[in-house]
């Protein structure tokens, strides 16, 4: 079980949250300008890193806000959380 540090509600059991996959994958501003390979990279390819991993979570059963969690995927240790406003 992970204790997810919701920036608005505090730490809560992961049961209350929805996992939203890797963070920092911005949607291309002009998809039509991309090659099929570039589009596929955006669409499907993931770093899937073993170690520090920035990822999206939504406090579905709470404030319903999306935010970013940094977690070590090898140990599940949570290293921090940030809101979209604050994130770089």
């Amino acid at each position, binding site marked *: *079980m*992970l*204790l997810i540090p919701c920036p608005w509600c505090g730490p809560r059991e992961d049961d209350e949250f*929805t996992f*939203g996959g890797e*963070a920092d994958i*911005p*949607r*291309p501003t*002009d*998809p*039509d300008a*991309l090659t*099929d390979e570039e*589009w596929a990279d955006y*669409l499907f390819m993931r770093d899937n890193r073993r170690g520090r991993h920035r990822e*999206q979570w*939504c406090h*579905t059963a709470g404030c*319903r*806000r*999306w935010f970013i969690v940094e977690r070590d995927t090898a140990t*599940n240790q949570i290293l921090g959380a940030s809101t*979209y*406003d604050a994130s770089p």
Partner: protein
Amino acid sequence: MSQPFRLNRGGRIDRHAPLQFTFDGRPIDAYNGDTVASGLLANGVTLVGRSFKYHRPRGIVSAGAEDPNAFVQLGHGARTLPNRLATVTPATPGLKVRHVNAWPSLEYDVMSAFGLVAPFIPAGFYYKTLMWPRRFWPLYEHFLRHAAGLGHAPDAPDPDRYDHVHAHCDVLVVGAGPAGLAAAHAAAHTGARVILADEQAEPGGILLSTCEHVDDQPGPNWADATVAKLSAAPNVTLLPNTTAFGLYESNLVLLAERLITDQPDHAGSEHGARIWRVLPKQIVLATGAHERPLLFGNNDRPGVMLAGAISTYVNRYAVAPGSRAVLFTNNDSAYRTALDLTDAGIPVAAIADVRSDPDGDLPSEARAQGIPVYPGAVVRHAHGGRRVAAAELCSLDGDPLGTVECDLLGVSGGFAPALHLHAQARGPSQWDPTLAAFAPKPGHGIHPAGAVAGELELAATLRQGTQAGATAAAAAGYSNGNEVEAPGANDSTQAPIQPYWLPPGNLARAKPQFVDLHEDVTLDDLRLSLREGYESIEHVKRYTTLGMGPDQGKLANPLATGVIAQLLGRDPASVGTPRHRPAYSPVSLGAIAGRHIGPLADPVRVTPMQEWHQVAGARFENVGQWRRAWYYPQPGESMHDAVARECLAVRRRVGILDYSTLGKIEVTGPDAGEFLDRVYTNAWKRLRPGRCRYGLMLGEDGMIFDDGVTARLDDQRYLMFTSTANAAPVLAWLEQWLQTEWPDLRVYLTSVSEHWSNIALAGPRSRDVLAAAGTDIRLARQDFPFMTFREGHVAGVPARVFRISFSGELSYEINVPADRARHVWEALVDAGRPLGITPYGTETMHVLRAEKGFIIVGQETDGSVTPNDVGLGRLISRRKDFLGKRSLSRPDSVRPDRKQLVGLLTDDPAQVLPEGGHVVDAPGPRRPLPMRGHVTSSYFSPVLGRSIALAMVAGGRATLGERLHVATLHDDRWLPVRSCNPVFYDPQGARQHV
């Protein structure tokens, strides 16, 4: 029976509360406070089971959860409990205890014949044989399966129910032996909230088994006093009978509390269990240690017990586990057992000590009592069949030292910390040579104390427990300055143990020496495993099944590590131990499932009209969590009849459908139109207020994700309908895009699915019904055209009425606040009665939409279907970007031979195609046979008087009218069909515009 082996004094049993249980039908007298095991021993019953593989006679080895042998079946019928340990099961009146895995009886088990062929069925024998002839494997397997297994599952559903408790505390102490009690006391003293859990019925642990003193009083008295203090403290929760079985990340600890009953109708002594999910800030582990068995020939004979267990039976239960004992040890603790036995009047005929010069306090005392001590001696093997009869002693060099008669052979190979929870929490451990066992490395967040930390001295254990409790409380933020003093006990000097893993040379070669008693894994099996290259401890485990029994190898694994290390000539630290996996002790599936079964398995969602549907005789179907009216059979009607009647009523007169389950999302804000433009394939900004539009939503992969109508309520407000099943996923999807990708858009999403009920009126007379029910909305065609919506009142209730249609008929979808929906529904039904209004369910809805060729997401689509595939390419805007658009121009998305939506008409109009049946060009016996597609929807259309079907067929749209064949599912037949336009009824769409 008179309990011939009951000692006449001592023990913690209540001699004023006698009771009787049965073992294989034989009455067993015992006292309250006994376990089944102590009760059996008090009556001289030493044969309690048969081993898993060779069916050798087996007795009680331990007095706790680590026992590899004492598995029994409790009770009978629905409440029976298979594979419970006699050593931890409290004796209760009327309890029915039976042996497992022996036939016809425990004494005469035909399967003990396996013992005769044991030389030919070593570890992993089945990997090397039973391969020929190939077709015989099911036969071999049948035999293997019936020879294996232990107890029997109940034969009826479980009548008990199980609760879950969610708890938080500052300090959780696992184990209420001396270390745990001291820790709980020290932590509670600071004011911290403490939970103290112990797997046994009585807290006290080892203190209840020995004669040692704490704070100048007998250990049990100190334990009782401490427990009384803790029970009285408001900040302490004391949980006896509670096993901590799993320790997970974030410090989540799962406890299983056994609920004990003495009601005979409960058959077993447990009437369920309660699972505690505890999130402590700090954890003190005081889980103790397990005594290690020793290897010698026939070391599995009933009567061979752990020395510590003998002390427990003598001191705690006032039971003599035998009448004449021999002890075999490599450390001092067995001498304490010898003294306990002597004190109880049971002669100790010999102590064989591996060490050449045992000279600690305890050996000296034993010698002083006149107990014969054999230094540098080992037991070569045990004599006896169903019970040990003698121990053959020899020197480490193999020189015979005589055979000593005994019916009790106590062994102690040292102590291995019960690291299970520590290891589950990924706490690292290290080989401790003074223990000859793995001990936890300190400093990893969890506070081990006492034997689990490798501390076997009582005084030091109490100090360590006190320290751990105070440290844990401080780490949790509690410290009141005046720390409690650790309870005192006598320090005794103990001589170091001398690891003894396997008999030197060929000492005991001729007799089997069991490393894992439950799994019948012998020393020879380990040798074979290593010889064949299965050297990693995990390979040994998997190849020999070492430690895979219901005891999880609690005794076997620590022994095996040393044995394997010695066989390989390696350091035990490098051999390691198999990964400790939860559960520490088995936990019933029902307890873990808790209340999430039956009606509470998943919430049932119903609409406000549910009762009305029930009264009207509706049959229901599950759609996601919803229970929806499926069809309304009238007396004597089949489903087919009812659906045909409902369909014709809608096509000819008017029907009414409860469509409240549709998802409804309000999209508001200045940028709402822009937002919809990005998530739908078609354009929304220019949709005028008051108008509705059908939209398709795609995943970024270009595949249809959801569809539905959205209405523009006013300038900055849209109401989006989603499919029933996708209501929650669509909202989540939209929120994710809005919050993570487009936070600059000023848009707010609100789910209003539950707030608005939706009643669909459909059919040529629906306008008349709506008028008759009373509405202030002008219904004339020019005032309220197709694909518009109006706000007003229906039957006196504020309503949003949408002129949209999923049936192809003139239709109104009437949204009213959920709390008034039943009233409006009934008003419409009343108003429509003269016009023949007919309630219809989801099945009729499906037929009507299929007649019109309307798709259902999830039925025509499966996550691999683009808008163009279902003939909705016209909804793809070329002038804007939207989610999934780029994927529509990938090479695979533009293949001409993609599967496309077509209609299928059977040659025989009465023939309804099987849904899911595949479509081929040319039928034949060849396999694999190339397939063109499959039938997605298939019905008998009452209005057309024939069957219709929708199908996804490769390249289907370009070849309409072609001859195809559909496979049946059950009888290998082919049904000839022709493809056609998927709109079967009113292709011009005139009827919905009237």
